[in-house]
């Protein structure tokens, strides 16, 4: 993580969320399979995955979402844990040897009686710059 949350005032329209890069490996994917109980062979069986259109194993979508959630925790703290919303689409798969970059920015700010509500565009890209995940996160500060 390149940045830390330093206060609510920094979250203005266009503000960048603390981006990070994660390098995947089959070992990391296997570790996530054990932690989550998701042993779909597309993730953990290289021989099976080689026969699919992906040509090899891919990371769990929920592993990539965990990376996004880490960024949102770093940015918004408890506001993400309590009241956070996420709506995303998986647009591509992360192969087991790729480095993915997680990032986002504040897309909309609404001031109200109950505080500030932020909508952030979030994404996960692979090392070729292809979008693997795109969507929106919402928090109330």
């Amino acid at each position, binding site marked *: 993580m390149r940045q830390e949350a330093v206060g609510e005032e920094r979250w203005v329209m266009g503000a960048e969320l603390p981006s990070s890069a994660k390098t995947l490996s089959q070992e990391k994917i296997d570790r996530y399979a054990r932690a989550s109980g998701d042993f779909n062979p597309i993730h953990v069986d290289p021989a099976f995955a080689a026969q*699919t259109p992906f040509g090899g194993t891919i990371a769990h979508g929920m592993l990539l979402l965990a990376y996004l*959630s880490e960024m949102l925790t770093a940015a918004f703290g408890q506001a993400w844990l309590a009241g956070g919303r*996420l709506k995303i689409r998986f647009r591509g798969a992360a192969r087991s040897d790729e480095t993915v970059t997680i990032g986002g920015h504040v897309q909309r700010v609404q001031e109200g009686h109950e505080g500030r509500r932020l909508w952030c565009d979030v994404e996960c890209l692979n090392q070729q710059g292809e979008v693997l995940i795109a969507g929106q996160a919402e928090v109330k500060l």
Partner: protein
Amino acid sequence: MNKAIEALEKGHRFSATAFVLDEEAVVRYLEAVEDEALPRLAQAEGKAWVPPMAVAALALRSLMEEMTLPAGSIHGSQELEFVRALETGERIACRAWLSHRSQRGGYWVLAVGMEGADESGRSVLAGRLTVMVPR
């Protein structure tokens, strides 16, 4: 009973499940996803918070005890709402239903709605996922 999800009809309600946010499982999850932000925040606040995505993953895992996703199934989209921060040791009851079922190309497109509640019955998590299942 474990069933193939593509054989279920729209509106099908999965059996209610429950799980405890076990500290060991949460530690294993944090290591697997290399989350440094949550432990730092939890330590600063003196709380045993669980990463919200871990709750979602454990909820999905509990659902998988009833349904089988065929090899090659692909996660298409995900919506999640985290109502309150959860701590290790809490027990979460989950209910889920098949909210959409259609065909596209060589896939079934299935959507599952889910909701998690704490021991007092208050909602703590809601979500919807779509999955592409090979036909």
